[in-house]
């Protein structure tokens, strides 16, 4: 009897059945202090680096290979054969690259949503908290921006989904843009200026980053006057200056330079970044874009002759060409002279240069291949300037447009004589000049395909490559996701 009574007291101790893992944090015992909040936000940054898991979804696949600027390359048609589908606009709904993009975007959105749910109740410095929430909002907006510009309207996972919501159907494009805009405006309100961050936080999302992505979003939606005004805020914020030496932007020293607005950070000292959920921080872009043979790369994203020709269009060689592509005979950093023999006998005349890294910069730890250290320059000031020019043009403010484009050209001209004179064109010639400037200034940085689609020029430029306006301005929704939701998510037309 005594036993029974004792048992009752032991047994009905409320905690007896309430057991939590003794090793490792759980959702219940994490998110308690500032350090936890920061770790939660850092984890949301990590998917920015998910470039190859399970398959490659580099920005240059969509922006460059799918445009007239580059072809797939590699060792042959069968090397990453699904990229060939993309290059030739024969993409299937089960394309693994397309599915990987979808997957990484939503993983980033999930992690941002976790921050937005778990961080607000934490008792901590309110200013830091506001900043962290702003960073998370930007990250969510960035991934939705990728999704909406690639797939159109997508499921609007604006919170951590409950099991009953797993089969979330697609929202409209407008609804996605509304969320992106709201997130970015809120982020811009709370995020510090670039100069307000401590040096140790270099690489974090700034107010300018949020504003610039919003500029891009407004431009995509052809909301020209808002875009122009906001671009001017960024340009006049005194946070960003054009790097005087265009070539330096793409060097190791040029990382996070004065005109860097949004850069995805990679390093080469952590052992190799094999895919997602990996603690290491290297990039595959370096090795994918280096030539084969003695250059020890995979030789993808091969610039086209048409792209190179763009740099000669004004009757001189645009000085930016030699920062953008390698031509036969060029020195490839400390890796040797570019000859076709040295590349393993491949027939390509050009290789991309902006993500080239020297042998001396190779990882000292682990496999150098997945361990490139070159940051991905996602948004630079010149991008914002050119978007400003484009918006100003559409707002019939040609003077402002010319001013911005000429700032970009002046920097590119540098000290070189007789090249890149100031643009004086008006009307449609001015617009053409802006388009030309974007192609050369931002060449092989993953913008071209989206610029063509956005400006309605894709059919004209890409139809010889197989582009069909009614189909290919949007990517297919991954087939697996239509199946996984029992058809709640519907396919884009034409796939």
């Amino acid at each position, binding site marked *: 009897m005594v036993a*029974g009574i004792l048992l009752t007291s032991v*047994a*009905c101790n409320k905690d*007896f059945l309430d057991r939590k893992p003794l090793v490792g944090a759980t959702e219940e015992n*994490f998110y308690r202090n500032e350090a936890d909040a920061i770790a939660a936000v*850092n984890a949301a940054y*990590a998917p920015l680096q998910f470039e190859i898991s399970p398959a490659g979804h580099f920005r240059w696949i969509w922006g460059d290979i799918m445009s007239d600027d580059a072809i797939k390359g590699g060792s042959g048609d069968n090397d990453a054969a699904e990229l060939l589908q993309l290059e030739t606009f024969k993409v299937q709904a089960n394309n693994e690259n397309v599915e990987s993009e979808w997957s990484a975007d939503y*993983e980033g959105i999930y992690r941002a949503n*976790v921050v937005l749910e778990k961080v607000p109740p934490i008792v901590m410095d309110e200013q830091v908290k506001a900043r962290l929430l702003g960073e998370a909002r930007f990250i969510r907006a960035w991934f939705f921006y990728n999704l909406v510009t690639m797939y159109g309207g997508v499921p609007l996972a604006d919170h951590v989904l409950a099991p009953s919501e797993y089969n979330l159907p697609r929202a409209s494009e407008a609804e996605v843009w509304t969320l992106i805009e709201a997130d970015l405006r809120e982020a811009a309100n709370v995020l510090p200026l670039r100069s307000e961050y401590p040096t140790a936080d270099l690489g974090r999302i700034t107010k300018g980053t949020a504003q610039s992505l919003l500029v891009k979003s407004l431009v995509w939606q052809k909301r020209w006057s808002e875009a122009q005004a906001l671009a001017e805020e960024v340009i006049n914020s005194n946070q960003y200056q054009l790097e005087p030496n265009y070539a330096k932007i793409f060097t190791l020293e040029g990382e996070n330079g004065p005109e860097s607005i949004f850069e995805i950070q990679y390093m080469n000292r952590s052992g190799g970044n094999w895919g997602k959920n990996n603690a290491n921080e290297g990039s595959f872009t370096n090795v994918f874009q280096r030539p084969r043979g003695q250059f020890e790369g995979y030789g993808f994203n091969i610039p086209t002759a048409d792209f190179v020709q763009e740099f000669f269009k004004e009757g001189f060689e645009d000085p930016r060409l030699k920062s953008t592509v390698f031509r036969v005979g060029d020195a490839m950093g400390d890796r040797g002279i570019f000859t076709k023999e040295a590349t393993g006998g491949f027939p390509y005349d050009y290789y991309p240069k902006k993500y080239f890294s020297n042998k001396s910069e190779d990882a000292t730890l682990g496999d150098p291949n997945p361990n490139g250290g070159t940051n991905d320059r996602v948004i630079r000031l010149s991008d914002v300037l050119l978007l400003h020019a484009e918006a100003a043009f559409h707002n019939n403010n040609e003077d402002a447009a010319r001013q911005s484009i000429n700032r970009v050209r002046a920097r590119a001209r540098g000290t070189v004589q007789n090249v890149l004179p100031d643009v004086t064109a008006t009307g449609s010639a001015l617009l053409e000049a802006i388009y030309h400037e974007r192609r050369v200034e931002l060449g092989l940085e993953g913008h071209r395909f989206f610029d063509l689609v956005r400006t309605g020029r894709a059919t004209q430029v890409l139809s010889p490559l197989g582009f069909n306006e009614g189909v290919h301005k949007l990517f297919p929704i991954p087939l697996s996701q239509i199946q996984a939701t029992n058809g709640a998510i519907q396919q884009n037309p034409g796939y």
Partner: protein
Amino acid sequence: MERAGTCLSAHNNLIIMNIKHTYLFVLLLLLAQAAGAQIVVSGRVTGADGEALIGATVAVKEGKGAVTDIEGHYQLTAPSPETELVFTYIGMRPRTEIVGDRRTIDVVLEENNALIDEVVVVGYGSQKRSNISGAVSTVTASEISETPVLRVEQALQGRTAGVQVTQNSGSPGSPLTVRVRGTGTINNSDPLYIVDGIPVDGLDFLNPNDIETINVLKDAASAAIYGSRGANGVVLITTRTGKKNQDGKIAYDAYFGIQSAWKKANLMNAREYAILSNEAHVAAGQAPLPEFSNPELLGNGTDWLDAIFGDAPMTSHQLSLTGGGDKSTYTVSGNYFDQEGIVGGDKSGFRRYTARINGTNAVKKWLNVGTNLGLTNLSRRFLPENNEFTTPLVRALNMDPVTPIRKSDGTYAYSRYSDTDIINPVNAIEQTYDRWKSNRIVGALFGDLMLAPGLQFRSSYSVDATFATRNIFYPTFDLSSDPVLSDAPAGEKRAINSVVLQHNNWSTWQWENVLTWDHQFGESHHLTLTGGTTALENRYEYSGGANSNLPSNDPDDAYISNTIDPITAQSAYGGADESSLLSVFGRANYVLREKYLFSAALRADGSSRFGPNNRYGYFPSVSAGWILSEEDFWHSKVLEYLKIRASWGQNGNDRIGNYGFTSVVLSGQNYTFGPDQIITNGSVPLTVSNPDLRWETITQTDLGFDATFLNGRLTWTSDFYIKNTSGMLYAAPIPLTVGANPPIRNIASVKNTGWETDLNYRQRVGAFKYSIGGNFSMVKNEVTGLGEGGEPVYAGRVQSANASVTKTEVGQTIGAFYGYVTDGLFQSREEIAAHAFQNEATAPGDIRFMDLNNDGVVNNDDQTYIGNPIPDFTYGINADVEWKGIDLGIFLQGAYGNEIYNATVRYDFTYVNRPVSVLNRWTGPGTSNSEPRVSLSDPNQNARVSDRFVEDGSYLRLKNVQLGYSLPKTVLKRIGFEKFRVYASAQNMFTFTKYTGMDPEIGSYGGALEAGIDRGFYPQARVLLGGINVIF
């Protein structure tokens, strides 16, 4: 206490009842003490054959009983003429005599063939076999001891219907797979083991000689009293205890045996290997290796299987003392068991010391206390087993026969042909030092309060604590023939030695309180009520460390601190986890007029393993039986006892991991910041948590009968059941929009439908006694759900094909083999051209795979189900003969209708050795239609997962044959012994199977999803042994 009202109100009521009854009945008991006249009674107890029964119990109600002596005589004092004497003897029908005016009472006890009066342990109580309405099987001590075995599970194999036991490995001490009524889940399908009321994990600590009975609760109604732990059946083990008023006995049992491999695979010799190598080179347009230019010179070469197999001893010594006075009983036993493995000699072995002390003591008439305590010290030495990469067996099967074991200078050689993965197995065994040592205490203290006639309260507290250490040493070695060039492949040398030490502690305490009320109302109503509570807590702790670069290469010096560089090379780790269980349960058994049986049980389990939204589970059951033979209309003399039974119940499987409902926030989701790019930690829950997580539920319906014919000589029990598992845990894929890994959820389901039967016949003709029995189990397994969408699960990857072998999908068996269907070989280019496209390089002599969907291409879509690891039926047959002290026992066991996927040959390597069947290879049109051409590469993927590797796994095994001789009682009397028996036995003497691998009896090392895949199982040994049983 705030939740007492909700979680344990039933218990509180019981306590209040207890208190009231205690005072009342203790009072009554005291009043019942009365003195009476003392009558001395004596007599002799014999069997039907006139032989004295030695050690028969003569119990006196309310008095001191007696035990018959060596001539069957007894003498005792009876309180009054009304005294009832109850004569009992194992295997005999008890007899009750009223003293009356007799002073000499001789009794002849008759054999109790039917055993329908035997008492069966059913969990928190026991019941007469005849009154059970569920499905419970019993294995007795005599069956267990018939085949000397190391582990208790082995004693269960083939002994009873509905329990399938599969040896996972012949390695000494290796655990077995036990399935009660099929594979209930894709997760953990192990039954719950209860030893003397204590739930235990694993049975290697238990000495089979200490066991009195094993009862297996098979249907849901019987297991429902174990609630959330009973879903995969419950195995109740009762250890031996002495009997009251039994003279002390000393028993000594010992045996010694020699084990050897019963079969070795037939592989190519060096000559044959070279011939095929030459052929393959020529086929590939390459020059044959010069050293193989004359294969005849190579002779037989090395038989690597011979090199790793050897004869190995096994020994057991057991001493036990049992007895009892009028107030107490005791058993004290000690056992030493030692077994070496047939592979690797002393590198694989099992040694166990056990001690057991069981005792009970009546402190007061109303209070009985007791203890069951088992102490075990065991050590195991391991070799890698059950994988395709590091096991001595796979290496011996694949190592080329040209390489000698040792070079001429006596050092070990390495292969220059097979592949770098296939290293010298003899050296690899020698370089293995992997030991597991554990000390375990499993013990219980209990007290029984007799509150009133028929009302008993038991409180028991038990502890199961294991302290284990694993010690691994990796010495340096180098098989390079040239130390400067260091030409040996990576697996054949180790430049830096290292040591790993891990401590593991498991501890469980359990407190159970059970109140039982047993009452006969008048002539025709018998009611038994049982109610109780359980509180249980488990904790596991581990810590370990490793270090490398030890100055000494002697394993005896392998301690973490003995290193050249103690600081930088050390690693340490540790952790813990825990779980708890809190339960209330109750059961009512009602017998009406000794022929209508009803039983109902309910258990409520609260478990820390269940998610916060489903912390408590309720498990109900009902059963009923009807003893037709007790009806007035029953007149059959042949079928003298017939009971039909039906039961329904729900059980749970709580083996779902300790914290499955929560999601761990995983660190290491990093990013870099700052000009110096500092790695900054990020943390996120990568997996969706599932607060709804709960047990897996099994709902089972059982219909059966028990019948006894021919004066108890023939018994027949048979059951049909449908067992549905719902809420089976499975991490089904979820849409990527969720952004995290899918949670494990209770979404899948499986159905097992089965039929099982036990048939036993025993007969005695004069001095000649014999019995023959058999059991037969059939079970059909079908996956009935895998969650929304029902994406199939692929598992069982094999290296030789670099692909999964099993596919589990709705409508199919769990873990069915899935692959291509072969259709002979291409004999010519024309045949290749006429067939669906396979590969550009497909050549004559390659396998033709069927184009099942007729689309002109052989690809993934042409795969189908090609086999199934679950037998159509399993069976056991035993026969025992006894004649004038000579006993002969034969025990056969088998499975029929299952397939085995033979993945032991590493086809992913070109130069490995192969079974001799490869000699029938295709060498030109018409030469073979089954064994493909040999080649240096496999463009046609002849090694892909296909029915080529699926073999019939049916077998019939002569598990044991044993011949013994016992000295006759007349001789025993003279030397003062009660029993003296010597015996010889042979285990696994014959195995009938078509399977070409080493052993058809293979289980699974990757769970239900990859059963029946032979990746190089350690085969079972054939054992020849001799032993002795002495009691005095």
